């Protein structure tokens, strides 16, 4: 069964902004799915429609077979949402926030408290259970939003930039947690601007830009479709002239830094041979960007003519 089916989703806001131009994609049950796109692409709008916070102007949404238009209640029961912006009551304590949210889903207080204890401990917030949410740090608030989304045990967890502004160590521990949730059967949809996060966690991916779906595939084949990769080489001595590098496309970033594009079929060995033949010594090397980042930039900047 599909966890989520989105068909021809359209949204024009009252302000006249045409945010979605007929987006369609499917998320299979058990998937870990990335919804990517630059700022303003329409990710949060899409999530808003699925969670009934935004009224769509066209299209269909089905969640585990339940239609958003005819069976909203059952749609809602399946979903847990971690929104992009903090939206809890700043005067309530951590425990009150999560227990209230569970209450709106019909989870009685006693059970909610038991589950809250488990998740708050798991995400390192148990010590803060009686702290008003306005006194939490940004990273704590992010984790609180995750706990809040889980107490009714949703089958589909939707996270809109869950790790924005979270430090690396904490981000990794959140990744581990989400992976574990996914392994235990929760379908997860995630948006993020940290592409290594999507690459690390997600099996399938949709990229939207200017309200249109420009890519929907699995992560592996997407990464395999990357035909060129750019490497940055740091040189021992400053270069006066550009070395002759045959088929490689290269340019100097500065006198001691060289950027080289490597296409499928070209070999690093060959590049280094050419360089050492001309007496150029390379001390260090790195990928210019994370592979997904590079792909993403190519896909979304190519599509920029859709602007407006």
């Amino acid at each position: 069964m599909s966890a989520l089916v989105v068909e021809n989703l359209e949204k024009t806001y009252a302000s006249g902004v045409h945010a979605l131009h007929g987006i369609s994609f499917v998320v299979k049950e058990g998937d870990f799915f990335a919804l990517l796109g630059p700022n303003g692409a329409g990710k949060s709008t899409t999530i808003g429609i699925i969670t009934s916070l935004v009224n769509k102007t066209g299209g269909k949404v089905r969640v585990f077979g339940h239609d958003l238009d005819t069976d909203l209640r059952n749609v809602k029961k399946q979903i847990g949402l971690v929104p992009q912006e903090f939206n809890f009551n700043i005067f309530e304590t951590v425990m009150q926030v999560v227990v209230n949210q569970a209450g709106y889903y019909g989870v009685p207080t006693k059970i909610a408290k038991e589950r809250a204890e488990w998740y708050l401990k798991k995400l390192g917030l148990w010590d803060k259970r009686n702290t008003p949410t306005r006194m939490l740090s940004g990273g704590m608030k992010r984790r609180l939003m995750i706990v809040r989304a889980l107490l009714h045990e949703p089958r589909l967890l939707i996270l809109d930039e869950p790790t924005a502004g979270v430090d690396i160590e904490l981000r990794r521990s959140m990744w581990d947690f989400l992976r574990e949730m996914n392994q235990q059967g929760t379908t997860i949809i995630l948006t993020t601007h940290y592409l290594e996060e999507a690459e690390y966690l997600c099996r399938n991916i949709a990229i939207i830009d200017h309200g249109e779906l420009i890519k929907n595939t699995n992560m592996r084949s997407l990464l395999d479709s990357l035909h060129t990769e750019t490497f940055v080489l740091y040189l021992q001595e400053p270069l006066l002239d550009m070395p002759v590098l045959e088929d490689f496309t290269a340019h100097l970033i500065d006198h001691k830094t060289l950027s080289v594009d490597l296409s499928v079929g070209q070999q690093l060995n060959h590049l280094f041979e050419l360089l050492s033949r001309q007496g150029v010594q390379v001390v260090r090397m790195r990928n210019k960007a994370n592979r997904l980042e590079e792909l993403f930039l190519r896909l979304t900047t190519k599509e920029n003519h859709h602007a407006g």
Partner: protein
Amino acid sequence: MLDRVNYVAFITILNKEITRFLRIWPQTLLPPVISMTLYFLIFGKLIGSQISDMSGFSYMQYIAPGLVMMSVVTNAYSNVASSFFGTKFQRNIDEMLIAPVSNLVILVGFVMGGILRGLMIGLLVILIALFFTKLHVYNLFIILSVALLSSLLFSLAGFTNGLMANKFDDVMIIPTFVITPLTYLGGVFYSIHLLSPFWQELSKLNPVLYMVNAFRYGILGLSDVNIMVAMVMIIVFIVALFILNLALMQRGYGLRS
């Protein structure tokens, strides 16, 4: 309608509302206590002693039911208006909107919070009044039902205000320019028979007049208006506002973009 999910959700919203007005008691419970004490002291005791009896009751006794009613309705109103608007403003309302809780339960939950605050204040003001004067119980059923219906009506009105408000000013404007004048002109401090016929008729368009008089009737057995008419008017307003609120919510007015 009230299945298990909605039942738990209702209790949760109600509990949240009660916790809220108890937590901020210096803003919610204390001000009416102070202002009503001053009213009793200044109007009732100092000025009232210079005023002759009103249909056989001292002026203090005459204004006491009106002051109770005034506190009940203004507190019920502002509780729901500011709580609901605050919830909306912080986008905190999304917690409810994404959950399988019905609009009816959200509406009734907030309104119930307003009723409880209104009645609690009403009780406090009655206690204060008892320091200054004796109050009768002419008709307990009327007292209870008028208090309940009036706080319900003003809670519903506060909900409409909160739902339609876009900024904090919007939840201040209506109380200042509508609710306060209506209560002051609603016959709390005087009998409308003291007014010229034109102003008497105009006063009869004021819903607060019916509540104040019905409540005064329950306590003193004294009213400027027909009690049945008063009750029917209150109920008509309640039904109208209830339907309006539910219809606005169903459309997602002020809630969904």
